[in-house]
């Protein structure tokens, strides 16, 4: 290295350029090689969430990744609808719920996942609707599974980007999500009425079909969940009404 003057501008600039090229190409190669695997992980998580919402945490927890994917491909059919309730000829895989969330409500593509009991795809066990909204710090999203009567919630799954750990982030806890099980999306008169988090925590709302025990210390996140559920289930209302038996 004694040939070069390490303090000359030429040396420094050449060094910087070569270094940038080398590290830049290494990063690009790594990102490209890992991309398919990463996409698979994202897809697997979606399948996990949908099945978890529909069939319950316990059923899915003990399953391996391959089993989840097999169960999903065998029993789930995905459709895309508009807020008018009409089916759209769009591949579900091409719909990104986050991108749709930023569009005006009436032109959004809304995926619907129908979970069948067996792979013959005869009887629908439940319908799963993706939901998206805002929590306290950042976006929150999830899946709501409604039983085949299209009235009773059979399960929900929530996830978030940056809610406070131990407070708002508790929406990912199975116990918190289980509070929605059995709630109704219609009230006694048969009109649409979406379950929501009540203020305060530790109260028993088992007699009320809409009130859900809230999250103490995370009121804004809880309100975010409630309004996310309401706005999305209202978007799906025409679909729900037209599929009700």
């Amino acid at each position, binding site marked *: 290295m004694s040939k070069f003057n*390490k303090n000359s501008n030429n040396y420094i600039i050449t*060094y910087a350029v070569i270094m940038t090229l080398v*590290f830049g190409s*290494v990063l690009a190669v*790594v990102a490209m090689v890992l991309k398919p695997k990463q996409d698979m992980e994202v897809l697997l998580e979606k399948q996990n969430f949908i099945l978890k919402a529909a069939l319950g945490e316990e059923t899915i927890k003990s399953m391996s990744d391959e089993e989840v994917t097999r169960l999903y491909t065998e029993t789930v059919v995905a459709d895309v609808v508009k807020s008018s309730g009409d089916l759209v000829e769009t591949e579900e895989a091409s719909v990104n719920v986050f991108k749709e969330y930023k569009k005006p409500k009436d032109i959004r593509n809304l995926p619907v996942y129908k979970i069948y009991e067996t792979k013959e795809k005869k009887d629908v066990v439940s319908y799963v609707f993706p939901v998206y909204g805002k929590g306290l710090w950042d976006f929150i999203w999830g899946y709501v599974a409604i039983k085949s009567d299209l009235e009773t919630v059979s399960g929900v799954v929530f996830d978030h980007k940056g809610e406070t750990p131990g407070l708002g982030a508790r929406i990912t806890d199975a116990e918190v999500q289980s509070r929605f099980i059995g709630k109704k999306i219609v009230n006694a008169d048969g009109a649409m009425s979406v379950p929501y988090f009540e203020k305060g925590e530790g109260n028993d709302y088992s007699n009320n079909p809409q009130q859900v025990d809230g999250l103490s210390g995370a009121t804004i996140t809880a309100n975010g969940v409630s309004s996310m559920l309401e706005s999305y289930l209202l978007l799906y209302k025409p679909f729900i009404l037209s599929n009700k038996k």
Partner: protein
Amino acid sequence: MSTETLEKEVNEVKKTSEPLLSKKRRTLLTNPLDEDNPITIQVLGICSALAVTVALKPTMVMAIAVTAVLVLANVVISALRNTIPNRIRIIVQLVVVASLVAIVDQVLKAYSYDVWKELSVFIGLIITNCIVMGRLEAFALGNKPWDAMLDGLGNSFGYAWIILAIAFFRELTGSGKLFGIKVLPDEYIGNGVMMSPAGACILLGVLIWIIRSRNGYVED
């Protein structure tokens, strides 16, 4: 006779090349664990020690990620040390560290998606972890790759055992669990302070106090 002395000399020269794990080199590994610990003595890398230690599992991943980044960065910088222009050495160090961190981030996203979701913010912050830059600047720039690797291992283990110790107490007292498995009876109500970084700060302070009073270390 002359050949004899020559051979002797050659032998002697060979002998002076250090064994791979000489006493001096072993101290590179062991010193940072205790009397020259990056967290408790040098007080570096505190932010991540407070942020990631809510539970043992993410802490473990963070420790492994820091170990990978620190060791590799140390080796790379040490191998390049004679070519690096002095005027841009910090930039070169940053590029190396940032690239390694980006790679770790991508690998985690592909092979440990759950953990990645939880940690990706903090993984990005390894770039600014003072321990990494500190070791590059203080050690890797002036030593051979093998020594730099040992130094990197030693310092990341020193970092790892401290954050694991904090995570152990935080997870145990904060949620009654260890590695996500409930170990304390259901009647135990989690201590909310321990779930927040404030709890980590208190624990870390106590830990620093214990270690320093045991070593008799006094701040200059």
